[in-house]
């Protein structure tokens, strides 16, 4: 009897020792699972809510209104002549995407404890789905942005084509930090409590309600250490065009941001891969 042995996949069981190989092929084999987890996230998020999907639009709009009243009208944050509502909205879009993605990717792993202790699949699928599902929300809230651009008569420039790249950077940043935090969360549930604080503080460290130009020029490179600065300023540059960048060039900032993001992401993948083998035992 000749069975074609070549087609039968062989799995080796071995103790977890030393550095794991990254084995990203595994993840590729389970791409449909990532798709379904993302889809589940979306389906479930607005179920049994009265307003349903409108929350996607309401969230940034309410935020923007509050910021406009507080920082635009009362505190009069300088915006280089840009109307404050669109100035803040352009930054809020990537920020809210990032904050949501980071929260989901760092906490959903522990939420799936039941699954992790019973079924094998690449654990990374869960945080990845966490950052992907926010993209749909993001795309929907772009509608508001288009409306506001029409209202403020902002003529789109070619810069706008760079938007997906900045979004991609936000996604990688959220995933990088999400991988670190979710893996740590399996062991230290403190992370669950910590994440909201991290995000709150991070929001103020990022020029969301103010512009990077508020910071004196010689300290501005420090902002680059926060990859979200590159993303947020990149968004403003892409949406508001040359109107915004009169005396400020986001280029160098952006390069620093990309470097930091890649370092966090790659180390996050390595850390996650090396700890995921013990998840089922300690979760």
């Amino acid at each position, binding site marked *: 009897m000749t069975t074609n042995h070549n087609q039968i996949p062989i799995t*080796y*069981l071995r103790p*977890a020792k030393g550095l794991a190989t990254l084995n990203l092929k595994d993840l590729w084999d389970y791409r*449909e699972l990532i798709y*379904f*987890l993302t889809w589940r996230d979306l389906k*479930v998020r607005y179920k049994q809510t009265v307003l349903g999907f409108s929350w996607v639009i309401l969230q940034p709009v309410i935020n923007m209104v509050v910021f406009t009243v507080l920082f635009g009208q009362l505190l009069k944050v300088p915006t280089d002549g840009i109307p404050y509502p669109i100035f803040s909205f352009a930054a809020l879009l990537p920020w809210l995407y990032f904050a949501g993605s980071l929260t989901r990717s760092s906490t959903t792993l522990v939420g799936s404890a039941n699954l992790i202790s019973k079924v*094998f699949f690449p654990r990374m699928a869960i945080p990845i789905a966490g950052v992907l599902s926010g993209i749909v929300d993001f795309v929907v809230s772009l509608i508001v942005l288009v409306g506001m651009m029409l209202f403020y008569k902002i003529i789109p420039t070619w810069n706008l084509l760079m938007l997906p790249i900045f979004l991609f950077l936000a996604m990688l940043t959220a995933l990088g930090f999400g991988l670190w935090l979710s893996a740590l969360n399996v062991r230290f549930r403190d992370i669950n409590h910590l994440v909201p604080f991290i995000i709150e503080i991070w929001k103020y460290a990022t020029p969301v309600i103010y512009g990077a130009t508020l910071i004196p020029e010689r300290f501005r490179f420090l902002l680059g250490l926060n990859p979200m600065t590159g993303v947020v300023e990149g968004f403003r540059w892409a949406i508001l065009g040359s109107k915004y960048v009169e005396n400020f060039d986001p280029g160098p900032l952006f390069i620093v941001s990309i470097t930091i993001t890649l370092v966090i992401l790659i180390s996050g993948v390595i850390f996650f891969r090396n700890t995921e083998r013990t998840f089922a*035992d300690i979760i």
Partner: protein
Amino acid sequence: MTDIAIHVDKLSKKYKLGAMYERQDTLRDFLTSMVRSPFQKRPVSDNQILWALKDISFDIERGSVIGIVGRNGAGKSTLLKVLSRVTDPTSGIGEIRGRVGSLLEVGTGFHPELTGRENIYLNGAILGMKRTEIEKKFDEIVDFSEVAKFIDTPVKRYSSGMYLRLAFAVAAHLEPDILVVDEVLAVGDAEFQRKCLGKMSDVAEQGRTVLFVSHNMSAILRLTTETLVMEKGRIVKRAPSNEAVDFYLSSGFVETGERIWDVDEIPENAAPFSPKALRIINEQGLVVNTIRSTEEMTIEFEYQLDASVTGLRVGFYLMSARGEFIFTTFDTDEPQMYDRFSVREPGLYYSRCKIPADTFNEGRFVVGINASTYRIRRYFQDERAITFNIDPAGAPGMQWPEQRLGPTRPRLNWEIEKK
């Protein structure tokens, strides 16, 4: 050359008890211990270590159906987890040829907010099925589950039976080379169990390898050809199933009429419930292993509640040695008991059940335990907590030294009338 599906060599798995039973793993503890002794590896004393698996070696041929039996905590589930790559072994190696599919505790991976249809796709993907595969099997799955009418209803509105059938249907239709089944048959009605067993023998007939863990000896006997008996993380016997089942039934049980639970035998998720002891007591109040069929017997279960529980019911399953159910009884079956003990405060409890004389036939019987709240939560279950023997001396009909069929031997009122 024989065709080996699973080969494992000296597989061991170690757990640290501290990590299992109390979560001291907060960042603060970690940091303080790092500050106190930053370069020292924190020593773990031997009694904190549990070898869930110890030097397990075996080969399993392709297409065979293997049963795994053993007491709670014997390492059966850990073995399946290692084989399905959920967790890594601490030492030893294994080689698995083919795709492994696990038939899980039913409903793992179901999302209550999603509809039946959506859950089929989601659960299929979690179990490693491709989307096209799921699409191809979709109708078959719905047919098998008998929930076609409710397929677009969120599963949180399903009855527990529907939920179960759907979950089983998805898992049963994934076509792995090696199917791993852990205790799925502990739930569901008889009709459902029959259907599941049928499906599983289909799988076996298609030449797939099946590993089947169960406490249900008749299912093991019906389904498997060969059985591994596990005890304390080791395989103590591998033999044709009927031989292995007999070995398992006649060994491993303490012969004193008392079963005491060690801390490491109590599953983590039982809290706040913890079983202490189960005793078989005769008419004189002695703890014994053999009861005369003409005397009343008491089954006493001692347990601790660390928090108050509403609606708790503690009960026994009485089974024959081969695993057929004789009856099930709960301490709050009577309405007045149910009202009186609707809430049980924390404390040590005894639930005692008196079984009248002349109930059982000669032979060996098994007592299983269940502590649960109806449809809400199962705190603790052990289908084979203890066994006892019935000595038939003085039972009805003993003047004929023949074997009486059936597990019970009641003393009944006969009338003979001559017209």
